[in-house]
Each structure stands twice: as C-alpha cells, then as structure tokens.
C-alpha cells in the first residue's frame, strides 16, 4: 500500500478540522479529493507533509510502511512525499535552478546516491522547463519571484517532474488557471503516471479531472469522506454542486 490513512483527526490551533478520515491509495493510483471550501482539503495535505500548526489529534498516516508522524518534514519529503502548493511562496535572490538542484541532490543524498553535477542537473532542468512550457530564463529567476499565478503553478509541476516523488499531493493546482495553463499542468502530471507513482489531486472543481483522469473520487465534507466512487462521481458534483451535502458552507478553509 502506498498510503494508508486511518481514522485521522487533526486540528489547526483549537479547531478540529479532520474528523475521522480514512483513505487507502495503492501504487499507481490517482485519487481525487473534492469538496466545498472549509471541508479540510488543504489541511489533509498539510498534516501529511507536517506543516507547523497542523496537529494530529488521533489516527495514523502510513506511507510505504513508514509512520509519517514519526518523521521530520524533510524526511517525509526525502521518502517521496511531494506537496504542490496552492499558494507557492517567494524566496528572493535564490534562483529556481539553485533551489531545485539543492532539492534534487538532498533527495539523492537521502537515498545514498551521488549528487548531480551542475551540468547533469541543467540538462534535466531544461527538459522539465520545456515540458511545462516555461521559458528557460525561469531557471535563473528567483524562486517564484514576480511569477504570475499560472507561472507559479507550472513551476510547482516542474518541481514535481524533477523530483519524481512516490506520492504527490496537488493542492488546488488548477485554481486561477486558464484552460491552456490547465492543460499544461495536467499534461505534466500525466507524464509522471507510470503505474507505480500515486497522486492525490485536491480540487474544488471537476474541470481538472477532465484532463487528469482519476481512478477514484472522494467527496470530503466537514472533515470526513462522505462519498467515494469512480470518475463519474466528479461529473455528478459538476451538475449538482455540493448543496446535497446539506451542510452550511464555511467561508474559507482554515489556514489555507
């Protein structure tokens, strides 16, 4: 099993957001998690990756047999957990190239592999850059510095392509994208599907799932999965919305 989440309860400050979430993901599967704002979609990704302030109350998360809660943030990442951010932060003065080279080499080091030389890395990075349709000078620019919303999202996918994680969580990677950018993001993700690597696609809208076809769709509401099904469930949400959940929709997801 790639991922096993059992009866997960988690809170942000005093507020319990996840209230008994269960999820199993096998290698090679793509799971979509949909739901209204405030359901706990982003919280799930943050708890899994270990962000400060997102606290486990009870339950467990295992990835490839490792208890994630026992590991530091960077150790989880080194074991192959990747989070594509909804709002990627800027790191002024640190070039994308430098940042990603350090990142790729930190992962390689953790696996006991030799670091890539600058030339080896540059070759890889140029290809990844082309794949997400970003001009090569993006490698020289500061991490997310002055990028448009769409460029930031594509940059996250470029990182995904370079790091080749075992399990990637895409946190609303479609928000704010026009249809062309959406296709680029989807193509990037699809290129990484190889029957072994798994994906959790978190989204509010069904649109992205037209391009990244999920194996399973889960509807998250008020911190629990209320319904699971195949890709057809996403279509259903598209036509009926989330009103059938019968819960008041909260304004903004806490901490997102």
């Amino acid at each position: 099993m790639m991922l096993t989440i059992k009866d997960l309860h988690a809170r942000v400050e005093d507020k319990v957001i996840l209230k008994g979430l269960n999820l199993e993901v096998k290698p090679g599967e793509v799971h979509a998690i949909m739901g209204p704002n405030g359901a706990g979609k982003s919280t799930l990704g943050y708890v899994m990756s270990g962000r400060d302030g997102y606290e486990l109350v009870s339950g467990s998360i295992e990835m490839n047999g490792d208890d994630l809660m026992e590991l530091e943030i960077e150790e989880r990442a080194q074991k192959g957990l990747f989070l594509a951010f909804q709002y990627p932060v800027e790191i002024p003065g640190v070039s994308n190239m430098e940042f990603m080279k350090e990142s790729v080499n930190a992962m390689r080091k953790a696996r006991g592999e030799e670091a890539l030389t600058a030339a080896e890395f540059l070759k890889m990075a140029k290809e990844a850059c082309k794949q997400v349709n970003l001009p090569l000078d993006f490698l020289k620019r500061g991490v997310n510095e002055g990028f448009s919303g769409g460029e930031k999202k594509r940059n996250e996918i470029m990182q995904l392509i370079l790091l080749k994680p075992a399990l990637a969580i895409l946190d609303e990677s479609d928000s704010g994208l026009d249809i062309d950018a959406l296709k680029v993001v989807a193509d990037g993700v699809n290129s990484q599907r190889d029957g072994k690597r798994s994906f959790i696609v978190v989204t509010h809208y069904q649109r992205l799932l037209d391009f990244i076809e999920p194996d399973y769709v889960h509807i998250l509401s008020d911190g629990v999965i209320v319904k699971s099904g195949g890709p057809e469930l996403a279509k259903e949400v598209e036509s009926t919305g989330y009103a059938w959940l019968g819960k008041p929709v909260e304004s903004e997801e806490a901490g997102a």
Partner: protein
Amino acid sequence: MSEQIEKAIARKYDAGFVSEIESDTFPPGLDEDVIRRISEMKNEPEWMLEWRLQAYRAWLKMEEPDWAHLGYERIDYQSISYYSAPKSMKDKPKSLDEVDPELIRTYEKLGIPLHEQKMLAGVAVDAVFDSVSVVTTFREKLEEAGVIFCPISEAIQKYPELVKKYIGSVVPKGDNFFAALNCAVFTDGSFVYIPKGVRCPMELSTYFRINELNTGQFERTLIVADEGSHVSYLEGCTAPQRDENQLHAAVVELVALDDAEIKYSTVQNWYPGDENGKGGIYNFVTKRGIAHKNSKISWTQVETGSAITWKYPSCILKGDNSVGEFYSVALTRGRQQADTGTKMIHLGKNTKSTIVSKGISAGHSSNAYRGLVKMGPGADGARNHTECDSLLIGDKCAAHTFPYIESSNPSAIVEHEATTSKVSDDQMFLCKQRGLDAEKAVSMIVNGFCKEVFKELPMEFAVEAGKLLEISLEGSVG
C-alpha cells in the same frame, strides 16, 4: 519553526584557536614613550614620529563618540598593549624559509597558505600577525608591473616621498577619536601603489590576525591608484576566541587619481564573542577614499564577526564624473552589535553613487545601517541611489536604519529605498518540503537575500563569503 531557525544559526567560530608563539609584547599602557618605542621598533624617520605625536596630542583632547546605536563598557585605553610581535620576526626573515613554521601553520589553518605555489593563482597576500607583517607574497611578479605592495612600515622607509604625500590626506590625523588613536599607534598594514595606466595583474589581499592576549591591533592601509590605473584589493580578518574584549582600530585610505579604479573588498570575521556576549573584538574602523576626475571607488564588505562593528567606508567624490559604490552585508547574531554604513560626499559635477546595504539580524543582536549622502553646492547633476534591506531571523533581534541626506544643489537627485523582511515559516516549510534541512534552508534564504552584494566580490572570495555565511549559520539541528 522559529526555534529551529534559532538553532540553525547557532554559530561555530572556526578561527578561534590560539597560536603558541613567543612574542615581544609591550606592557599595557599608552603615553608618548610608548609611541616613541613603536616608532623605534619600526625604524621610522623623524617626520613619522612627529606625525604620530601630533596625532596623540590631538587624541588626548578628543572625546570617545557615543552617537552610534551601540552599548558597551567604556574602553580603558591604559589596559591595552599597543605592540606585540612574534620574537622570530625580530631578525626580519629574508624569505619564507626563515619564517617560524608555527606562523605559517597558523595561516594554513585559516585557509591562507603563504607558499606561493600553494596559493590561489592570481592573488598576492600580505599576512599581518598582531603588530607586524609576516610575509608578502608575489612581490617580484608585482614589481615587474611596477606595482608596489608591501607592509606600510617598509614603505615608510623605502618610499618615504609617496607615503608622506598621501598618508593622512584622506583621513586626517584629527579626523575622529579612533582614527587619531590609530595615527598615533599604528603598527603595520599594507601599502599599495599602482603606477599610471597599469592594471594590477593580480588581486591583492591582506590577512589580519590578532593572536596575543590584551593586545590591540591598529593597522593602517594606504592604497594609491595613479592616473588610469586599476586595482582590486581584499582584506580578511580573524582572532582567537577569548573572554576579554580586544580593540581593533584601523584606518584605510584610498586615493584614486584621474580615471583610476579601486575595488576594495572586506570579509570581516573577527571573533564575535560567545552567546552571552562575553569576549569578542571591538571593531572601530575608519575607511575612506577620495575619487578624482572620472575615477571610481567601490567598497564591498561582508561583516560577520566582531562583538561591535563601528564602520562607515566612505567616498569623497571630488572629481567630476567620479563614481562611488558601497555594497554591504552585515550579519549579527548572539549579542553582536553593528552600526555600519557609508558616507557619500558628492563634490564634483555628475558624480554618481550607489549604496546597497543588507543587514541580517538574528538572536538578540542589533544591526543598524547609518548612511550619509551629501550633495555639495558644486555637485551639478549628481545622483545617488540607496537601497537598504533588513532581514530578521527570529523575534528577539533588532534592525535600525538611520539615513541622513543633505543636499545643497537643486539639480542633484537622491533616492532612498528601504525594506524589512523576515525569514518566514512559509519559506522554511517550502524548503523542507523539498527535502532541505533547516540549516540548509536558512543559509539558502540568507544567501539569496545577499546575492546583490556577493556578486560584487571578486569571484574567489564570493565563494568564500558564501561559505563563511554558511559556517556562521551552522548549528546543531538534527
């Protein structure tokens, strides 16, 4: 997260060892006799001694300045020894083979090999240990180009006309309290003369090491770039880890004649004191350059050490079209205090200056930028651009900015930008999610913040400065 950042920046000071070297050290205390003895040790001509004594008499009448944003116990100038030299240097070794191997080992440990074949190609070094210069490398090669690079004590004897003409011409004897003290008791330092039209074939550098206990280091550097010449110079400094504070009061004078260019870089890593602020170097330094017609003076500094830094490398833009630049990174942590910046004095027409200051404060430290931009009445069309950025790490440190602008010319343009930012939890989370540990994350974010300044350093030293910052930020996470 901020606790981890705090840990990540816990500093290890690699240069804190003491060398076992027998020295001739004056007993603590300062009076005219001490100055006479320093002058005598250096075999100086009468005019030099007279100059020192005049400075001393002026100093006696001066008050220690207290306007800087610094807090420290008053310095007892009678408790300091004003001269210390390794015994082995007394007979003036003719070549490196005659130099005490322990001295050579000291510099090797600091990463400064003094054997020419082991050195970075293209860098000549003057190694100053306490009060004397140990060796100056590549002198013959430089002499072929007509470049003079030697200890200032030697220059006073060999090139008295040059020294007499320029010493004190940029920083006069009575300029300020610490400069006057330096004029009275300076012991060694470097002298550089680049002849007309010569582009110095190598990077020049001086490496200052304080070793002896309770000794002050008062070095003096004078660089004269004659018309149309060009030179790039770098100084580095370290000292042992000791519980007592030690005083370092240096003077650097730069003279760029018409069409000349001087690039002066500093990587300052004096012992900063321990976590609780015990020990460390008091660094009170006066650096100033005068730029004649169409010339350019560029100061770049990376300040990571010292308990106290009081330093304002300045440019007097006297000639028309002359250019002054100041690029600075000052990192303070623990209980370190820095009050540093620059003065750009625009006198000539169409003079230009650029100031880029990056202050990084962590721990309980305090980091202040203090800068003056002055546009004289003759500075038609002069321009200044100042950019002043502070980065805070943690929530117990402080950053201050004190810009002073005086303009007496309506056609002059002065621009000032300032920002303050923090290493954010979001940035740390992004880095760690991409597999980097806290130390690497902090050093990468800080390096990114300093990039604009690092790119001004000579290439060999840019790498070194980045590494130094990394060591400074190295800690015990994990």
